[in-house]
């Protein structure tokens, strides 16, 4: 079950004709899919599109009513392959993932799909994870569209436009027999806005009909000679069909005056930022009126040559606003104008930065330079621009740079992965540093303080594979880390199978927290929860043994730091050759707390005996060396200033958010740190026996305490 319930959002999916949908961009897309008569949806979760998957996972009744098949795909490759249902049958399908990471994984299937072409509308919803808040490499999905001849929509970032883009996308796909990518940026996925809903549509042709009356056409399969035919088809039929459709349906937009010396060409997604920049320059207003002509590419690929030429003709210069690099559209524009011998000047990345987000300040700078060169008069009397520079130049503000701390993402309070890396730290102290290949997932936070463990990360499920070159005679073994998410995504074959086959003499640590936790706590094959919709509870150890690993250790409580450390040490020093796999399992604390906390509170209310555990630090025992923090980094383990005049440094302190996971105590015990930690067991609704025992113990203990206190000579407090 996902990290949060989407029951309320599911209600939004049921809105009918004329009702107002209010909510997040990615949920608007989800609703738009149902309005478009989609037959099947698949995908792989990941920011910024996780919510699309999460809502549909909770929306079984809505989907059943409409006859929509929803699948949580094993990987983006599986999702992309799912679109093959639209090759022969007139069914609309949509898949989604985080890009470019996911598109990389999916690209084998996407290439095959776009080569053969589709009959039913095939839509790939791309969460373009670029710019601030991104968690992946900074690349553009645009390249995939160009190389495979898929079309790429990049609608203006408001709910109405992106909903329309979904509907247009399916129609465009069908009109041109080509899969269509719909790119939405991070902020657009999370933007809150509204649009007028339509009724959901049941697909006219069902998957059941398809599977019961199968069709095949060998010409749709990528094998010579069909593959050559496909290329011809792409160039001679599908591409022109797409261009005609985009022109006819006016998917791109034009704003501002028809006449003008200069103009701006922009990707749809850049629209709001460009308008804000123009507003600051006094060339537009907040309601969308612009003094400068704007050509908005809601279709980022393919370029519509005639529209482009029409926009450029008669203008002295245009500027292309295109985010990221390389500047594919700008390059095509140059080619186009050169071929047609049109002498309109083209600016773009000469004035705007090659990489990074096109924020308003960046655009103000670039556009000002553009207007100064080509249309100075437009800038008029230049209204004052928002400018933080004078404030930022003040020494008192500059001084902030030295005190405002970095806040790297880290493990949550009580995270079961923390003790794993604490154990690795302890082993490191004994056996020295090791090469550690990291992977994708929450466990990657180990590369940050306080653990600073992990050398490289090559992709999801590729941790052990990326250690394969180190399969050489050496006195130290490489360690690779992989999460349960990465393991099932592709790690089982690519990393474990690879290690078995090549007799990789290394240690593979699989972090099993019962969910795909980093993406929001979705279930996976090895999840321990009952999930009526999916088949879960398939142990990772079974899979690992099944594929041929001989040395396998399962640890069922990662908080046992000493055992964790000993197992790691054994794996690193064992005479056994071949891969040594440790599966370290404990439930993701974020999800566990969501599950357990309400149960605990209900039980306490009902008068049941319940024990809550939490940790504390004895302030006068703590010497303020913070060694515990360097082995933990738990948000609930912090420091506080003390008023003890004999202590210089702040002491450790545990706040009320502590969930009593036990890591603090285990670490201080295993690492022989200090005796300041204590665990407090708080017994709610104690039984008669509890009370009796407490009375007896209390009587004896307080007698002894009084005895000692009476003999103690101390200054009055």
């Amino acid at each position, binding site marked *: 079950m996902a990290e949060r319930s989407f029951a309320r959002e599911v209600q939004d999916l049921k809105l009918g004709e004329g009702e107002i949908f209010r909510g997040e961009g990615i949920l608007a897309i989800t609703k738009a899919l149902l309005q478009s008569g989609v037959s099947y949806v698949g995908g792989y979760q990941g920011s910024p599109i996780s919510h699309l998957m999460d809502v549909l996972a909770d929306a079984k009744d809505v989907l059943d009513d409409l006859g929509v098949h929803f699948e949580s795909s094993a990987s983006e490759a599986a999702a992309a392959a799912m679109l093959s249902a639209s090759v022969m049958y007139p069914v609309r399908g949509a898949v989604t993932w985080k890009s470019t990471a996911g598109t990389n994984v999916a690209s084998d299937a996407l290439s095959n799909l776009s080569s053969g072409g589709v009959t039913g509308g095939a839509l790939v919803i791309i969460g373009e994870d670029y710019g601030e808040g991104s968690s992946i490499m900074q690349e553009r999905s645009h390249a995939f569209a160009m190389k495979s001849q898929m079309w790429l929509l990049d609608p203006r970032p408001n709910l109405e436009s992106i909903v329309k883009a979904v509907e247009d996308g399916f129609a465009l796909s069908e009109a041109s027999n080509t899969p269509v990518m719909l790119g939405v940026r991070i902020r657009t996925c999370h*933007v809150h806005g509204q649009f007028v809903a339509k009724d959901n549509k049941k697909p006219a042709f069902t998957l059941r009909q398809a599977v019961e009356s199968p069709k095949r056409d060998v010409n749709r399969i990528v094998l010579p000679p069909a593959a050559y035919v496909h290329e011809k088809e792409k160039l001679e039929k599908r591409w022109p069909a797409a261009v005609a459709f985009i022109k006819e349906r006016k998917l791109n937009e034009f704003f501002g005056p028809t006449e003008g010396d200069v103009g701006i060409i922009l990707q749809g997604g850049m629209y709001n930022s460009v308008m804000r920049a123009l507003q600051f320059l006094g060339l537009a207003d907040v309601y969308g009126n612009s003094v400068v002509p704007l050509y908005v590419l809601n279709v980022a690929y393919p370029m519509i040559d005639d529209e482009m030429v029409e926009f450029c003709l008669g203008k002295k210069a245009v500027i292309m606003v295109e985010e990221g690099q390389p500047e594919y559209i700008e390059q095509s524009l140059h080619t186009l104008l050169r071929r047609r011998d049109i002498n309109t000047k083209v600016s773009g990345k000469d004035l705007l930065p090659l990489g990074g987000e096109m924020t308003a300040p960046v655009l103000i700078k670039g556009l000002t330079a553009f207007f100064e060169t080509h249309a100075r008069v437009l800038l008029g009397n230049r209204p004052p621009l928002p400018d933080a520079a004078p404030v930022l130049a003040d020494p008192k503000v500059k001084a902030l740079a030295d005190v*405002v701390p970095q806040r790297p993402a*880290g493990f949550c309070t009580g995270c079961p992965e923390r003790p794993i890396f604490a154990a690795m730290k302890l082993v490191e102290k004994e056996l020295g540093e090791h090469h550690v290949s990291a992977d994708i997932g929450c466990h990657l936070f180990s590369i940050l303080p306080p653990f600073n463990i992990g050398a490289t990360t090559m992709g999801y499920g590729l941790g052990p594979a990326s250690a394969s070159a180190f399969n050489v005679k050496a006195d130290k073994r490489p360690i690779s880390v992989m999460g349960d998410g990465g393991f099932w995504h592709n790690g089982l074959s690519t990393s474990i199978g690879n290690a078995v086959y090549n007799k990789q003499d290394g240690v593979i640590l699989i972090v099993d927290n019962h969910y795909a936790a980093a993406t929001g706590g979705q279930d996976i094959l090895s999840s321990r929860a009952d999930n009526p919709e999916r088949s879960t509870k398939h142990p990772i150890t079974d899979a690992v043994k099944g594929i041929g690993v001989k040395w396998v250790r399962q640890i069922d409580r990662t908080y046992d730091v000493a055992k964790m450390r000993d197992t790691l040490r054994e794996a690193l020093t064992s005479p056994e050759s071949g891969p040594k796999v440790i599966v370290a399992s404990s439930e993701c604390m974020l999800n566990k707390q969501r599950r357990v906390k309400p149960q605990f509170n209900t039980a306490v209310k009902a008068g049941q005996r319940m024990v809550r555990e939490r940790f504390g630090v004895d302030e006068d025992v703590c010497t303020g060396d913070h060694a515990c923090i360097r082995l933990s980094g738990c948000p609930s383990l912090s420091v506080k200033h003390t008023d003890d005049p004999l202590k210089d440094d702040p002491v450790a302190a545990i706040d009320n958010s502590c969930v009593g996971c036990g890591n603090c105590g285990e670490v201080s015990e295993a690492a022989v740190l200090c005796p300041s930690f*204590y*665990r407090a067991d708080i017994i709610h609704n104690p039984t008669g026996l509890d009370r009796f025992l407490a009375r007896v113990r209390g009587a004896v203990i307080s007698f002894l305490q009084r005895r000692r206190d009476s003999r103690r000579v101390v200054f009055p407090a």
Partner: protein
Amino acid sequence: MTRHETFPTARLATVRPISVAILAMGGQGGGVLSDWVVALAEAQGWVAQSTSVPGVAQRTGATIYYVEMLPAQDGQAPILSLMPTPGDVDVVLAAEFMEAGRSMLRGLVTPERTTLITSSHRSFAVGEKEKPGNGIGDPRVVVEAAGIAAKRIIAFDMETLATKNGSVISAAMFGALAAAEVLPFPRSAFEDAVKAGGKGVDASLRAFSAAYDRTREKPRDTVSGEPEKALPPLPDHVGHAALDALVTRIRKELPAEAHAMAFAGVKRLVDYQDVAYAGAYLDRLAALTALDAAHGGAAKGFAFTTETAKYLAVAMAYDDVIRVADLKTRASRFDRVRREVGAKGDQIVYTTEYMHPRMEEVAGTLPAGLGRFLEARPKLFRAMDRLVNRGRRVRTGTIGWFLSLYVVASLKPIRLRTLRHEREMAHVAHWLDVATTALPQDYDLAVEAIACRRLVKGYSDTHARGQSKFDRVLAAVPMLTAKPEGAAWLRRLKQAALMDEEGKALDGALSTAESAYR
């Protein structure tokens, strides 16, 4: 392409949206707060848009939510930005004090426009917590900067206020926003937005209301750096003959500047051992005071004596198993634990201590001769270590375990004859020797040498590492004696030693110092 033509002569509207940026850390409810702001504006017939870039920041990282709002005009919805522009933000809400600092660093707070509403509480970042010394950023820098950057400041501890009212910080911040009257909506509209949210409404409204009133009454708390140390002045007498004798000695034998600190030291040592031990402390201190006075201490405010009063007490009250057992079994400690974990009424609390004694600790607690005897026999020592050396979960609330600790604590009378005590005192002697040797030539350096004792802390390995850093820094004293900037350099070395666990910063600082002075 779809044409939305306007004429070049069209008059452009000059209105601007109201912009609100929310800086929060994962789990602080920044999303809830931005949802409330949007719901509030929408209920008032405005168009509102919020965006965020949670990404991986949802796990403890810092993140930013951004809201813009403006009424529609003639059915034309405004085009709102998806990210804040530096210099163009009306309200910044920061859910933590350093996040307010971050908002200023990002240029979101400018004196022409921005009302800065921030909680003054701190939630320390890993980088601040992990330093072996004090890595906490100085909040006064944020106060200073806000004075320059913000048009108006509302800053108080919204976290504590929210917790007191059974709610979370987002509700308190929403209350402060309402009271700030920077959004053109009445208080009731804010409350309606909270009610419409539907979750924990009563508690949220309580926190909202408390923050609203607080903002009206006292919108700004004074933010200080570190809290004051509890350093009461030397009393006239305390009503106990033996203790009064100590107080009188402090007054008679030590300079006034050192009285408060020496009193703190005496208190600690009486508590740690007994009156006689505190007397021994004063003996040492008095001797050092004479030396201090002989080398111009009066002109320096007897800094040497005061500093020694502090660190000699720390050094003499070293942390050993007897001390830990004593502290863990006190009645006051049992009460404090109950308070700290928030146990109520009939709830029963038991504590489990995580202890890991090693043979080193056992030998240290034996009489010095016996301890040395064992240490001289490594085989035997290792065999005994195998028996002792393991993690023990000590359930202090049970009679058996309590008794065990009680017995260990009762070893106090033999403490001054233990091996550990012998070693600690030898170490103290060496330390004071280095400092007093430097004193006649370089007063300031001698004071710094005393203060190096700060490096010795922690238990077992951590203690050993601290000790070795201390030794290395102290070893630099002869090299720095009577050199220009010598004291400043020693202070720098000490700071460097507190930067990281391994002592990398110290290595660097030492080699720089050596190249400068050798």
